[in-house]
């Protein structure tokens, strides 16, 4: 009984050391299982030391040592696998052997065996796909129990003389079995706790970061301004729970939310020296209010006590502005939020850049549309005026109609600064153009349309059909000596198992030639805008059989709403 208590006392010292070690980074690899060799070497070194430590903390009984060496060997095998277990056991065993005594050989053999036993359980769990079970303290308890019984048997079998061995085993078997099993269980329990804390922090961190990233996608598509920054700052404020969040550009505060919002006003110039320094040098500045002093530069009564200033960087390293996280004087800055802040700055920088890119793209396509509008061909205008002039003489009523169509055409041309219209609206626009052309070419041009009326509400980019019809007339039917025929079809079809809307403009001239440099052409812009909006599988294709027909085919998806 006395031996048990003594051994348990030794165990306590051992466990305390383990606990202290668990506070160091040395312990982090123990919290997960991997087959990497660097990992295995670390396991081997660590558990061999525990093994040797166990031998040193032993009690001398009957010319032999009651010890907690088994914990290191079994745990080494259990966490590191049979190879590590064997190596740890062998190392611990050789060390024990070097200390002599009549059980030296028996102890060396049994410690190696114990490492292997731990390793066998490791393999069993891995094979069963239950790696998490390795971290169960009860598992460690039972396997050490078994390992210690095996050790006693080995001592009885190997140590000579047998009588002395038997006496020894009688004296130390119970204390050692109990102490080692409990010790192993405690050891595992410490690892398990460490693992839980580590994972919880990790999960909390990644969850927070992911939530922020997810809910702020596209915030800066309208630009990096007070409005978008306010939305961004409030998401960060709510998710991180810091005292206050601020976003600045290079000169002024764009958003401020949280404690002190009454005097940190968006739109006002930056006054904090830290912020200016962060902007100038592009460095992260952390003022904890103790080591590095912090005092609000606006109001001396401000409750904020510490600040983290992180520059927002452009791809080339130029500073766009800063994001600032604050904590009030009565609260400490958590390490978690400090790390998160750095990640957030990256996220925001990227979002600003993406936003800017998207904005530029939209601007580009808008300016291209304007260009198309401006390209109302002077030929068309003057020929139309000439037609009207001629028609006025013979048929004033018809002349009035033509003037109506012409004004309608110009009006909708000027109005179309919107991105999308329904097919119906686009057809109306096209019709005012066509009415004029039909009058102008009189007997030389006919139009036939097949339009699925159920598709009229489908949206397409503005100015999609117009350039195609203009081309079909200008470069198509108008070059024919004979009758020009223009067809417009709108119908639904299936493509790769999805429904797509097809709009066709067909002329009977067949003059289309693939242009050498097609960038900037009307048709090219039509195609680009559809692809931008709906994806690469949609767009415009042109086909032509010379002297027979040219067909322009547009495909767009059916989108709900």
């Amino acid at each position, binding site marked *: 009984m006395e031996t048990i208590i003594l051994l348990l006392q030794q165990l306590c010292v051992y466990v305390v050391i383990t606990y202290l070690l668990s506070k160091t980074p040395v312990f982090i690899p123990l919290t997960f299982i991997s087959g990497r060799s660097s990992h295995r070497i670390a396991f081997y070194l660590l558990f061999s030391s525990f093994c040797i430590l166990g031998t040193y903390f032993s009690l001398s009984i009957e010319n032999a040592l009651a010890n907690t060496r088994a914990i290191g060997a079994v745990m080494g095998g259990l966490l590191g696998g049979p190879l590590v277990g064997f190596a740890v056991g062998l190392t611990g065993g050789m060390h024990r052997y070097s200390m002599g005594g009549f059980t030296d050989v028996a102890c060396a053999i049994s410690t190696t065996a114990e490492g292997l036993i731990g390793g066998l359980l490791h393999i069993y769990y891995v094979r069963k796909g239950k790696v998490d079970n390795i971290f169960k303290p009860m598992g460690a308890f039972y396997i050490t129990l078994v390992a210690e019984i095996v050790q006693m048997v080995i001592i009885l079998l190997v140590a000579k003389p047998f009588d002395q061995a038997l006496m020894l085993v009688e004296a130390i078997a119970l204390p050692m079995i109990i102490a080692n099993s409990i010790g192993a269980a405690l050891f595992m329990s410490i690892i398990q706790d460490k693992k839980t804390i580590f994972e919880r922090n990790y999960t909390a961190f990644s969850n927070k970061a992911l939530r922020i990233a997810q809910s702020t996608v596209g915030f800066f598509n309208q630009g990096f301004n007070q409005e978008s920054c306010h939305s961004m700052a409030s998401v960060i404020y709510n998710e991180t729970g810091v005292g206050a969040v601020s976003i600045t550009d290079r000169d002024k505060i764009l958003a401020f939310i949280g404690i002190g919002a009454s005097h940190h006003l968006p739109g006002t110039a930056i006054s904090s020296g830290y912020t200016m320094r962060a902007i100038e040098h592009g460095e992260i500045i952390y003022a904890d209010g103790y080591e590095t002093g912090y005092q609000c530069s606006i109001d001396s009564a401000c409750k904020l006590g510490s600040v983290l200033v992180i520059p927002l960087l452009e791809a080339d390293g130029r500073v766009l502005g800063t994001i600032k996280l604050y904590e009030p004087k009565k609260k400490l800055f958590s390490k978690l939020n400090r790390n998160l802040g750095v990640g957030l700055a990256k996220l925001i920088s990227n979002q600003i850049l993406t936003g800017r890119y998207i904005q530029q793209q939209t601007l580009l396509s808008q300016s291209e549309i304007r260009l198309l509008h401006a390209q109302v061909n*002077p030929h068309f205008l003057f020929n139309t005026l000439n037609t009207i002039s001629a028609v006025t*003489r013979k048929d004033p009523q018809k002349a009035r109609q033509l003037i109506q169509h012409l004004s309608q055409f110009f009006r909708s041309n000027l109005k179309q600064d919107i991105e999308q219209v329904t097919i119906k609206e686009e057809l109306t626009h096209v019709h005012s153009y066509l009415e004029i052309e039909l*009058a102008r070419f*009189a007997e*030389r041009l006919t139009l036939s349309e097949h339009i699925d009326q159920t598709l009229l509400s489908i949206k397409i980019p503005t100015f999609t059909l117009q350039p195609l019809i203009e081309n079909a007339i200008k470069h198509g039917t108008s070059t*024919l000596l004979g009758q020009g025929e223009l067809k417009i079809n709108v119908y639904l079809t299936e493509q790769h198992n999805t429904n797509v809307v097809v709009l066709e403009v067909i002329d009977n001239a067949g003059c289309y030639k693939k242009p050498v440099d097609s960038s900037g052409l009307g048709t090219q812009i039509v195609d680009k805008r559809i692809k931008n909006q709906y994806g690469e599988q949609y767009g415009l294709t042109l086909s032509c059989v010379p002297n027979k027909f040219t067909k322009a085919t547009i495909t767009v998806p059916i989108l709900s709403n």
Partner: protein
Amino acid sequence: MLKAIIIDDELYAREELNELLVENKNVEVIAECSNAIEGLKAINSLKPDVVFLDIQMPQVTGLELLSMLDPETMPIVVFVTAYDQYAVKAFEDNALDYLLKPVDTARLNKTIKRVQLSLEKEAALPDYTPVATQQLELIPCTGFQRVLLLEPSEIEIATSEQTGVHLLTSEDKLTASLSLKVLEEKTVLIRCHRQYLINPSCIREIKFLDNGSAEIITKSNHSAPVSRRYLKLIKDRFGLA
């Protein structure tokens, strides 16, 4: 009365100009043509004093038509266009008369007056060559009950006969409304005889005859005589000393 032909592919444009010319009372519109091919035929057969010529027309433009006209029977040409910056600039640079659509009556009357004056004085025609197309891409021809446009490279031999200028291709014999002189100047065809043009890329054989002349056989077995006068030029061209 001035005899005028209107050539414009748009019905209303023709009607409008016709009305305006009728109002002028000094002009008689003897034909209205809806394309350059009809126009060419009408000019050659009706011999108008003045032609009102639209520029943008299908297949053969007004400026191409201009270059198809034989200088000897050339009428005064008044260009009519809705909008064509480059052409208008060229007309101004060369002091050629043009009208902008919709046509202004005052300007039209002034133009007519000028045409009348130059006819009365029998003044030389303005030089249209700077604005006329230099090389013809399509040659309008009439076959049996049809009009077609030949690329000059398709022509093997062009010959002028009593009945007009005939073009021989590998398969066809067609009648062109162009003079040999125009074809010689504005296409790849070269002269080999007073009444014959030959496409040099279609020659298969040149037979030299005893009297110092020769005969050309084309790839499709058409033959054309080579007069002594042109034989030397042809020999030079092909490096035959």
